[in-house]
């Protein structure tokens, strides 16, 4: 079966699609989430679903998994109409979804999570038998997890594998993975892909949702693009160029993210961030690193490389065992966030939902949190000044919002991240540290985010970007590679992807 026969609309002759949604429309109040969109997924393929934030991917997934009823249109599995919405068991035998948000209950054991609500019939639960069944199930899919461990102690990777195993144990052969790679490091992503290929060979069909177009090319055979609630195209991946895919997503011929052209930073520029001999047991050792005013420095490494812990130390969230962090010549009190901020640091935390934003407060309040002292005398926050400042930020960073009054939980991922960035830059920091600034952000927003960062650098801020994403690092003057707690390599602008990735994976150590 080649990809050509799998495009949407193929009916006669071919094997019935594993899953099919046709002419789906769905509105939420005034918002059209899907406008007669559809998707056809051939059995045994890995099908990518891409689209910018707000294109309708999540709605389509919730309709395909039976969590939402479409206003019109129909869903079929293996050629037969989907079961009634209330029949959860029937749905689970047909389709399973591994969401970004965990559907694991952290306080229960892995075994119990696997067999939740089917631990036993009416009678007593045989705990030993349950653990044995769980061990068999996990072993069957080569998932090395202790069934007796509390599920809350699993890593993101293990959690996903447990959820996939659980999905398969219901007999579902169609699995939706909603941005499974967003929180994984490169090695774990490779392991996930390997596993997906094995399962695919065993007859499992995947719908794969990702913001990383590279991953789509790596693991998928067919891609469906949604844009503005509509179906744009379904095409075999190998006949679609990267440019054409981005164009389909953005609606015009967008360019892939190249580095932004920036003048070189003169040697005479002052050092704004100076990390000397920094060490934290269990995370990193002997880190020396200097960022000059106007310089963009990247820091890449796998999840276990200690790069995030290093960023958190600079921001004062952790306290190093040895060494010092200096900001623009001052040495703020170690382990104190207010001291680091006062010394001129801007910090963009890794998890914008947890550490970055207060979801119920408005855009204006969130964006001006660190500069409230400038909005009025004696601690008074003048609403008009706050609004004016926020309005300027909204324009400067191209934040798509109803206005400064909108609560940030109503914003899309990319726009929420822009609010965090606007806030980090609000008090004109001398040095800016960003951790995974574009995680979960669509291509367009990524571009405007990175441009805003480059702009800040041009104004004289020294920027340290801690990220796994090569696109984030292309504009950097130099990129440092961390491996097992040490900086093992430094490459300057113009590096090749392969060179950086091999260093990150520690394949060839210097």
């Amino acid at each position, binding site marked *: 079966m080649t990809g050509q026969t799998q495009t949407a609309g193929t009916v006669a002759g071919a094997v019935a699609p594993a899953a099919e949604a046709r002419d789906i429309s769905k509105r939420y109040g005034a918002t059209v989430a899907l406008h007669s969109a559809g998707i056809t997924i051939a059995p045994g393929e890995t099908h990518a679903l891409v689209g910018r934030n707000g294109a309708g991917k999540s709605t389509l997934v919730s309709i395909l998994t039976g969590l939402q009823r479409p206003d019109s249109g129909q869903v079929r599995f293996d050629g037969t109409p989907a079961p009634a919405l209330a029949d959860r068991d029937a749905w689970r035998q047909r389709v399973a979804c591994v969401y970004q948000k965990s559907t694991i209950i952290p306080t229960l*054991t892995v075994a119990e999570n696997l067999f939740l609500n089917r631990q036993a019939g009416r009678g007593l639960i045989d705990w030993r038998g349950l653990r044995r069944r769980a061990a068999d199930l996990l072993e069957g899919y080569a998932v090395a997890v202790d069934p007796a461990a509390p599920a809350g102690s699993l890593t993101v990777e293990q959690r996903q594998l447990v959820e996939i195993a659980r999905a398969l144990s219901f007999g579902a052969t169609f699995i939706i993975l909603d941005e499974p790679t967003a929180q994984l490091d490169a090695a774990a992503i490779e392991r996930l892909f390997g596993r997906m290929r094995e399962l695919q060979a065993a007859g499992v069909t995947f719908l794969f949702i990702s913001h990383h177009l590279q991953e789509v090319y790596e693991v998928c055979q067919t891609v469906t693009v949604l844009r503005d609630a509509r179906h744009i195209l379904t095409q075999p991946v190998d006949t679609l160029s990267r440019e054409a895919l981005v164009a389909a997503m953005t609606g015009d011929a967008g360019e892939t993210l190249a580095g932004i052209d920036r003048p070189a930073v003169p040697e005479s520029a002052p050092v704004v961030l100076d990390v000397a001999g920094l060490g934290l047991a269990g995370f990193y050792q002997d880190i020396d690193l200097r960022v000059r005013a106007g310089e963009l420095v990247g820091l890449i490494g796998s999840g276990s490389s200690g790069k995030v812990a290093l960023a958190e130390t600079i921001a004062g969230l952790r306290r190093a065992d040895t060494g010092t962090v200096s900001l623009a010549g001052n040495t703020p009190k170690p382990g104190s966030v207010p001291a680091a901020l006062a010394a001129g640091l801007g910090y963009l935390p890794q998890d914008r939902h947890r550490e970055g934003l207060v979801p119920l407060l408005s855009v204006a309040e969130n964006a001006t949190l660190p500069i409230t002292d400038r909005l009025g005398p004696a601690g008074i926050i003048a609403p008009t000044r706050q609004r004016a400042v926020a309005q300027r930020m909204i324009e400067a960073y191209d934040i798509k919002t109803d206005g400064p009054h909108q609560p940030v939980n109503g914003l899309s991922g990319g726009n929420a991240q822009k609010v965090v960035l606007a806030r980090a830059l609000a008090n004109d920091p001398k040095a800016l540290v960003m951790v995974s600034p574009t995680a979960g952000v669509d291509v367009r927003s990524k571009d405007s985010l990175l441009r805003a960062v480059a702009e800040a650098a041009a104004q004289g801020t020294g920027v340290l970007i801690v990220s796994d994403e090569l696109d984030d690092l292309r504009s950097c003057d130099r990129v440092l590679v961390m491996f097992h707690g040490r900086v093992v390599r430094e490459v300057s602008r113009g590096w090749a992807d392969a060179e950086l990735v091999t260093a990150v994976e520690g394949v060839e150590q210097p």
Partner: protein
Amino acid sequence: MTGTQTIAKPPAPTGGRPGLGGRIPLARLRDLALVPAILLLVVVGAIIDPVFLSSANITNVLQQQTELALLVLAEAIILIAGKFDLSLESTIGLAPALALALVIPAASNGLGTELPAGLAIPICLLVGVAIGAFNGLLILRFKLSAFIVTLGMLIVLRGLQIGITGGQNLFDIPPSVLYLGNAVWFGVPASIWISGTLFVVGIAALGFFRHGRAVYAIGGNTDAARAAGIRTDRVVWIILMVGGLLAALAGLLMTGRLGSVAAAQGDGMIFTVFAAAVIGGISLDGGKGTLFGALCGVIVLGLINNILTLAGVSAQWIQAIYGAIILIALILARLTSGKAQD
């Protein structure tokens, strides 16, 4: 700092081996954490006053704790499901008071309806169930916060009791109502048998039955529980009704033991109820803890109370000291469990 590799171990990609899981025994240990504390208290009690170990005193301690134990049983189940019920302390007074007011003559502060005395116990239990059902209606249907709803109910129910009884204690209690709190079965007060049995039933239900495990699932992650096909609202509703039922039963036991229904029956108990549950390892965040742990919490508090009395602490001070000891116990429970208490 030296060149040796003292660096981060990457987070182990795999959990422990399947099979002889190293963590289940640990979880069980957490369950038994209070047993040494109970033993220690017994030793301390024996040293302070030899009377402590007499079977009369032990029986007395246990019987006094039966009502608290039933409230803690109810609250623990509700807390594990991730909800709250503060109104239990008023249910324990209102349920028997209303039932009695309906059967006793108006001259004894009744309502004058003078229903048959045999209906008193069924009415009392029904009132408990109805209160739980009403709490469930407000929390689940109207999506109100369990905290504020049950706090409101606490005040309303207490007010109802005072309104119905005219603020008087009820003394004219029919023998059927007195029976459960007074009877002695096989040499042990019936109330101890009842509480013990109900705890065993609760431990079995929450530990070994699918519907009991659903309570943990709901408290741990409601969305995940719903996705697994658990009817979360129905389970929570049933739990709230069971909670009301247990509180009403506790009210019956207390009425029988004291021979009257005080206007302030149960007043101020809810702090002790929460303290026993939390000391016993129940998380206020839901999804965590066991009923056995909660039972241990009850016993610890009962022993402390008894020891203070035997030690001759003056009646004026006992409340302050008892409260302070509970706070210290909470701190210890927090320190030994190693995690922030939520």
